[in-house]
């Protein structure tokens, strides 16, 4: 009886073993898993199939196959923890890049990026060195930036076009262009503007909201002239005055600029320009324009719109109505001249959209060669592959005939007829956002990216940028890893008090709240952190 059982088990094991072997020995295809924003469009399968076929006709990729998968932050964590094979992935602003690098999520790419191995990426790295630097950490390159039209950022003050006559535009521009930091006069101009529009009953209409977006104004107007160490308004708000040659590190809450803003925030709250629900529901403008707002330029629209007239230091937000006529909706006052844009610290992840090769990749050499292929110059096979991936099939192309469907028409360098406006979503037939898969400027344009934008950015990168003024800490990258707990503590204090203060909710009592916050921050070892960062900064300056 016992012997019978043994022999049966043995036989089963043998069969199992043989089955597993043959299963494993079957394919010689190299499979690369590319995780990204595949939204499961109707015709995704078709396009990916065509992509793979086309890829296999390129020398060196004859037996490579790409499998596209959906990625989000939950999956990412689980994939990394379970060593699931992912060869190429997207990373950027929804990921804490420093933590990911410290966790070992990404493969270091330095050994792969050489002139013979990856000529295109190598060339790009020389040309866009600042962007590639934002993807490197402690001397190693981990991320490949997907170039976007971010260039020559200026802070802007946004006025609805209906209200532009009430603002002393020249006054604001003159004051800002001659002072790198925001002076009291700027706030006074804003104050006059608010009084004027209220008197004329020009607010709370169908197109203009009732309140200002005070949080936006704080973020982009109050912080002018200060550069933040350790990233976007986090890192305990440590900063320095850009014009200061000794780069004295301060906490932004200690500066006069902050207190100046608080004074006016409290005033505007008392005068009723700030929504009573501001901490809960923002500026409550919905689809109407806030009475006043602020933002930053760059990104997706060029800084000049010559077809609608040219005013010094002003750009426009433009919309098109059903008849095809363009009309201005917002006036954007450019608060900085190009000369005022100084080169400063190097921030990890500032480019916001990158490709990476996770440590779980089984074929990093092939993966990086694929990325290099997709960054080939316009006209080469690799570039066609990139456009295929982003836009799908061109009308009258061989794919269109083979699969019986097409996704765009090519006119010049612009892909027309895509069934989405700004970005693809799951309801369109096919589309992947170009900033998810590669260098935006190497793909065809879509109508919402304006002509000449690529050249504009290139000129900035190759000419303007090199004539920038540099702050004392140009290129400096701070290392805050030892102080992460202290910083987290300070950050929580700031998170608790800051919104109340900058929205002026405490009205005339704001000083008491401010003092309370400062005493708590100082009690949380602010001095220690400042000293540590200062010593790093001093060391950097002296080298």
């Amino acid at each position, binding site marked *: 009886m016992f012997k019978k059982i043994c022999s049966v088990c043995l036989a089963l094991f043998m069969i199992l073993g043989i089955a597993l072997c043959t299963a494993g020995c079957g394919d010689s295809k190299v499979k690369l898993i590319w995780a990204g924003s595949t939204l499961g469009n109707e015709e995704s399968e078709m396009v990916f199939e065509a992509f793979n076929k086309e890829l296999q006709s390129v020398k060196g990729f004859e037996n490579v196959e790409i499998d596209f998968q959906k990625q989000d932050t939950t999956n990412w964590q689980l994939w990394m923890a379970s060593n699931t094979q992912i060869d190429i992935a997207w990373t950027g602003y929804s990921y804490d890049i420093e933590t990911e690098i410290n*966790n070992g*999520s990404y493969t270091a790419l330095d050994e792969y990026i050489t002139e013979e191995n990856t000529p295109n990426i190598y060339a790009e790295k020389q040309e866009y060195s600042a962007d590639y630097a934002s993807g490197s950490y402690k001397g190693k390159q981990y991320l490949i930036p997907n170039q976007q039209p971010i260039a020559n950022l200026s802070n802007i003050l946004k006025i609805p076009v209906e209200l532009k006559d009430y603002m002393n535009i020249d006054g604001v521009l003159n004051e800002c262009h001659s002072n790198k930091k925001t002076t009291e006069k700027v706030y006074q101009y804003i104050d006059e503007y608010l009084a004027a529009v209220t008197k004329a009953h020009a607010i709370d209409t169908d197109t203009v909201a009732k309140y200002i977006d005070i949080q936006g104004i704080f973020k982009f107007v109050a912080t002018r002239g200060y550069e933040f160490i350790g990233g976007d308004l986090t890192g305990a708000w440590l900063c320095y005055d850009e014009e200061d040659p000794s780069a004295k590190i301060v906490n932004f809450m200690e500066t006069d600029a902050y207190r100046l803003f608080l004074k006016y925030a409290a005033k505007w709250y008392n005068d009723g320009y700030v929504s*009573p629900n501001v901490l809960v529901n923002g500026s409550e403008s919905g689809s109407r324009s806030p009475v006043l707002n602020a933002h930053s330029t760059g990104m997706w629209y060029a800084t000049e719109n010559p077809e609608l007239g040219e005013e010094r230091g002003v750009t426009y937000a433009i919309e098109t109505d059903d008849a095809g006529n363009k009309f201005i909706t917002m006036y954007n006052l450019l608060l900085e001249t190009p000369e005022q844009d100084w080169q400063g610290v190097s921030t990890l992840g500032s480019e916001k959209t990158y490709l990476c090769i996770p440590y779980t990749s089984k074929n990093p050499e092939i993966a990086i060669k694929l990325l290099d292929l997709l960054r080939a110059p316009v006209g080469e096979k690799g570039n066609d592959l990139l456009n295929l991936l982003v836009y799908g099939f061109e009308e009258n192309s061989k794919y269109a005939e083979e699969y019986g469907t097409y996704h765009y028409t090519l006119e010049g360098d612009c892909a027309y007829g895509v069934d989405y406006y700004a970005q693809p979503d799951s309801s369109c037939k096919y589309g992947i956002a170009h900033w998810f898969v590669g260098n935006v400027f190497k793909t065809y344009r879509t109508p919402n990216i304006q002509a000449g934008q690529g050249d504009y950015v290139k000129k900035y990168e190759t000419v303007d940028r090199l004539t920038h003024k540099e702050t004392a800490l140009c290129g400096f990258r701070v290392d805050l890893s030892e102080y992460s707990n202290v910083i*987290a*503590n300070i*950050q929580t204090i700031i*998170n608790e008090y800051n*919104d109340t203060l900058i929205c002026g909710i405490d009205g005339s009592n704001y000083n008491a709240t401010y003092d309370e916050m400062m005493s*708590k921050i100082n009690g949380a070892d602010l001095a220690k952190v400042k000293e540590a960062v200062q010593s790093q900064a001093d060391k950097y300056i002296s080298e």
Partner: protein
Amino acid sequence: MTNSQKQKNKSLQWLKNVPYFLMQVPGLLWLVLFHFVPIFGLVIAFKDYKYANGIFGSAWNGLDNFKTFFSANYAFRIFRNTIGYNLIWMLLVNLFLGMLIAIMLYEVRNKIANKIYQTSMLIPYFVSYVIIAYIGFLFLSHDNGLLNQLIKSFGGKEIYWYYEPKVWPYILTFFDAWKNIGMASLYYYAALLAIDPCLFESASLDGAGRLRQIWYISVPELMPMASVVLISKVGGVLGGGMDIFYQLPMNSSKVYETTETIATYLFRGLASGSISTSAAVGFFQSVIGVILLLITNRIIRKISPENAMF
């Protein structure tokens, strides 16, 4: 008894256990394979976990992860809030109100009315707090909210609810009751259904009024369920969901004083993305939970032994 008789008794006894054990096999298998096997993950709380090293390859770092959490400058406040809310809600909502509503529901003889009442009470349980927060906003909004409009119509001055920390314990308790009453009373109601109606008849024949009947018949029948609820919920007193504390006050920073709990703190404030620290906090919550559970069980065993969990 002779030895062979004793042995026979013993084997008979064990034979009885076999059908019971077989019944439990699927459950036990599941517990072992799907719950206890992954439990090795608890070690993450004591390690400096990095993906690339895996769970077993990451270095041990003793109690560092715990220190990170406890040295937070708001540690006292988040513990006070978490424990306070969980205790009060457990006693008030799950025990007291749950039983009260079940008893009242039992009194409703009309079948249609009963169905309507009970179905409508269950609805909030399935609505997520994101939406409940918006409904709350309709009432509590500072300029157009229904509550403030009511106050203004009486000539009063509007109250800025989202900026007042003091009112939030009441508001949160109200919404927790509103959301959970349906489910909480459901199980008590089922327990009441199991009571033999003859008991009520004979009691009324003996001259007891309705309220007396409820106190002496219904309430004791609910005690086993109540003690089970008490013991299991007391283990979760350090836990609690994040949704109600984050969504309902709509993340208004002015009321953190009374709405910040362990869960929201981990979400908002902790040194970025640290899996190890969250694991440490989870481990701590589990340990405290077990201790409290054992203590409560002990106490209940002293009072009425048949209601103890084990």
